[in-house]
């Protein structure tokens, strides 16, 4: 199939308005005759569900948690970007667009990013009207801060809990529609398959996680808003339940996977403390506004950080990037930390950590002021590590945090499967090869509140209004396949637990497809993951049965999918013979160890098509055309 991104023609700044006008409308009286399934209730799913229900569609939502409010978006800390220019500091829609394309190392679609920047301003209006308690100034107006990689203050925030407050806003909008009977919310349900009828997505198969019952749900369109797949790496900042199952099953039904190797490693996380570790905790990037990152100039310096005099510290980000300093984009900050640790300058027990020091700002503004800004983050750090960051620098290290890759979608957010949409982190997104801080929340809400409600109508207007049967042969067949697969997992009856397999996979991915990648390492990694996958299907042990709440069975299905997706990530990383954003191939770097892009060879989206179990994927290229920004080597010096 030829990829058609459906980018509207015309000048960049008019594309979205023109497109909206061209989108066909569904008559208000007919909207209630259409059913839409939305899998996922994070920012993207919840905002889409509420908005579509308000328009009159019948919406069903699904999430695996016990409440839509607990989706992983709840954990986002730092903030959300919008081109409001409330600070009068030179921000504009165009600047946000430009920063995002540049920050993504020129691997995103211009038209999508511009639309994102345009609707960003409406998001803030929407959230404030819902009663989201953003931080404010004494004059009663909204406060802003600058955030990772931006030289303007365009980030709106609610203390260190912005994701929580935005999600509770979207959830409240959902609740209103649930109360009005326009949304039916299925919680503790996991989608395990997309159902296709006549080549169109017409429903899903889901498992009730309490009873284990398998259910068939039909609809005229299906939206996947199931978040990112970073948990392939096992130790990450994601919630434990975040998974790739929905998008991977959709992929196997024909949805192409875009740029799977683009993962983001966040520079400021609490380092690993031991084998028991189940997740890594992010320390918000906002800390980099006031904290200074350094390592001792002397390798293995045994002194306590506070005893090391100023002159014997290497503030390496300030040294290497004088104009951006501690605020360089994430990929650069992460790689620099790895670089310092690889060279032997790392600190802490493992040598895999650098200092993030607040003593200057505490001296300058006092402990009280610092507490007001970062109190909850400091408390969190203290609770986890047992150390007091007001008195001694924090120790941080990069950790997997976000996936820019995801299901390939066109300008309408439709995947290559007709009727199947992907929004939020689940799609291959607007962030190219690297996402800027505070832009994921923006994208999730842009997709859900302001894009899908238009584009889905355009598709539905051509779809028959009769209800879709959920007992057609296609549904029965899909249901049976899901049941067989669960039985297969239970019947292996081997010796290794699913957590053991997951941990092993995570380490493999981190070592072979982490912050520094090489052709050799990737090739070896692909062989290893094949072996691990074979081992999984022979030696897995899942206690308990199918017809009951069984957390190990849930996890087994997810890890089975990671074992396939992980391989595709490495295949993609191996294919991309360049370094860009979060994808760093050690063979391709400048003499100063910066990423070296190859715009001639790789200015494209890699969209991978599934061709059958154990068959090589087929690569389709969507060439990226830059009409508005000029491609340059990113420089933050």
């Amino acid at each position, binding site marked *: 199939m030829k990829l058609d991104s459906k980018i509207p023609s015309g000048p960049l700044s008019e594309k979205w308005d023109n497109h909206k006008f061209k989108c066909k409308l569904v008559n208000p009286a007919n909207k209630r005759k259409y059913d839409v399934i939305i899998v996922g209730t994070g920012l993207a799913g919840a905002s889409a569900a509420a908005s579509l229900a308000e328009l009159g569609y019948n919406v069903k939502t699904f999430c695996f948690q016990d*409440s839509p409010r607990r989706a992983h978006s709840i954990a986002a800390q730092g903030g959300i970007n919008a081109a409001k220019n409330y600070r009068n500091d030179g921000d504009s829609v165009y600047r946000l667009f430009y920063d995002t394309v540049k920050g993504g190392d020129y691997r995103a679609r211009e038209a999508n990013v511009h639309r994102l920047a345009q609707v960003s301003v409406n998001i803030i209006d929407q959230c404030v009207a819902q*009663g989201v*308690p953003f*931080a404010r100034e004494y004059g009663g107006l909204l406060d802003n801060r600058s955030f990772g990689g931006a030289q303007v203050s365009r980030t709106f925030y609610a203390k260190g809990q912005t994701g*929580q*407050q935005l999600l509770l806003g979207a*959830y409240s909008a959902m609740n209103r529609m649930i109360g009005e009977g326009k949304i039916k919310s299925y919680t503790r349900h996991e989608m395990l398959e997309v159902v296709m009828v006549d080549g169109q997505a017409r429903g899903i198969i889901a498992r009730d996680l309490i009873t284990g019952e398998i259910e068939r749900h039909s609809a005229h369109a299906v939206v996947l808003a199931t978040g990112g797949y970073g948990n392939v790496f096992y130790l990450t900042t994601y919630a434990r339940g975040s998974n790739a199952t929905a998008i991977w099953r959709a992929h196997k039904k024909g949805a192409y996977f875009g740029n799977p190797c683009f993962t983001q490693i966040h520079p400021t996380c609490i380092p690993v403390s*031991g084998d*028991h570790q189940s997740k890594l905790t992010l320390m918000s990037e906002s800390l980099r506004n006031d904290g200074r990152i350094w390592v001792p100039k002397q390798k293995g310096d045994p002194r306590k950080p506070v005893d090391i005099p100023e002159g014997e510290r290497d503030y390496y980000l300030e040294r290497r990037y004088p104009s951006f300093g501690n605020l360089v984009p994430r990929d650069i900050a992460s790689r620099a930390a790895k670089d310092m640790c690889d060279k032997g300058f790392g600190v802490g027990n493992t040598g895999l950590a650098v200092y993030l020091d607040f003593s200057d700002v505490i001296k300058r503004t006092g402990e009280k002021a610092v507490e007001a800004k970062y109190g909850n983050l400091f408390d*969190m750090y203290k609770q986890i590590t047992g150390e007091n960051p007001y008195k001694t620098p924090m120790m941080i290290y990069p950790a997997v945090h976000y996936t820019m890759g995801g299901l390939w979608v066109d300008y309408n957010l439709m995947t290559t499967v007709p009727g199947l949409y992907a929004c939020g982190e689940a799609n291959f997104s607007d962030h190219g090869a690297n996402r800027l801080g505070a832009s994921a929340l923006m994208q999730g809400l842009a997709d859900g509140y302001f894009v899908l409600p238009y584009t889905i109508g355009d598709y539905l207007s051509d779809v028959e209004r009769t209800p879709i049967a959920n007992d057609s042969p296609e549904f029965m067949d899909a249901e049976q396949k899901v049941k067989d697969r669960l039985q297969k997992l239970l019947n292996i009856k081997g010796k290794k637990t699913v957590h053991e397999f997951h941990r092993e996979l995570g380490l493999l991915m981190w070592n072979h497809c982490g912050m520094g990648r090489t052709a050799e390492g990737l090739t070896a990694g692909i062989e290893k993951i094949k072996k691990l996958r074979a081992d999984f299907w022979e030696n897995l042990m899942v206690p308990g049965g199918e017809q009951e709440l069984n957390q190990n069975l849930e996890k087994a299905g997810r890890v089975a999918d990671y074992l396939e997706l992980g391989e595709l990530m490495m295949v993609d990383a191996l294919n991309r013979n360049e370094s860009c954003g979060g994808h760093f191939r050690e063979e391709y770097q400048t003499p100063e160890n910066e990423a070296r892009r190859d715009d001639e060879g790789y200015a494209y989206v890699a969209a991978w098509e599934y061709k059958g179990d154990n068959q090589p994927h087929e690569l389709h290229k969507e060439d990226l055309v830059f009409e508005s920004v000029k491609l340059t080597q990113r420089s933050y010096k």
Partner: protein
Amino acid sequence: MSGNMNLTLKVWRQKNAKESGRFETYAAKGVSPDMSFLEMLDVVNEDLSKTGIDPIAFDHDCREGICGTCSMYINGRAHGPVKGVTACQLHMRSFADGETIIIEPWRAAAFPVIRDLIVDRQAFEKIQQAGGFVSVNTGSTPDANSIPVSKVNADEAFNSAACIGCGACVAACKNSSAMLFLSAKVSQYALLPQGRVEAKKRVKDMLKVHDDAGFGACTNTEACEAECPKGISVSNIARLNREYAAAMLVGE
């Protein structure tokens, strides 16, 4: 395991909502003080799985104190012995070597047990659906800065909105009242101009669903505030009472 603490766990085991439950005793050996409480349970579960015993089912997701999923009673206290943290943020350094730890699910009529330590909190959803929102459609909103809000009120609304919906307040209350949870939501909106428009209807509707869902009445024991991991204040309950009185006075 990677540490040197040895503990005895007494854990509530219950196969499903219909069967009755009981305490089982397990040994947790070689626990590291740096482990979180849930990581300790992970390790115990791996051992149980390998000896053919069903692992202990417990709810969790974010593991950083924000999603509100984790929910367990530890040594007679909701979320365990440390004030201001959820079970997932609790670390084993808060326990002594050799200690016996009793782990139970939330106990409240409105939160039936689903399995082991997992309870059903759908009653919270129903309360929210009854009025925990501002009725505004997508797209029909004025510029954000056209609604100024005093910083004091905005901060206060944020403090109320910080509730994670975990249910510890209900579990800690001898009446199983959800007034702290409910009042936090009512307060967030009561403090903001956006929320004032529907304030009277909201408080009445939400309170009615609260009572119908089987939560008890508030008798001001303040046990909820003491156990709330997010420091939600009982002053929210006082505000709710004022809002309710005002709503009843005017009638609508």
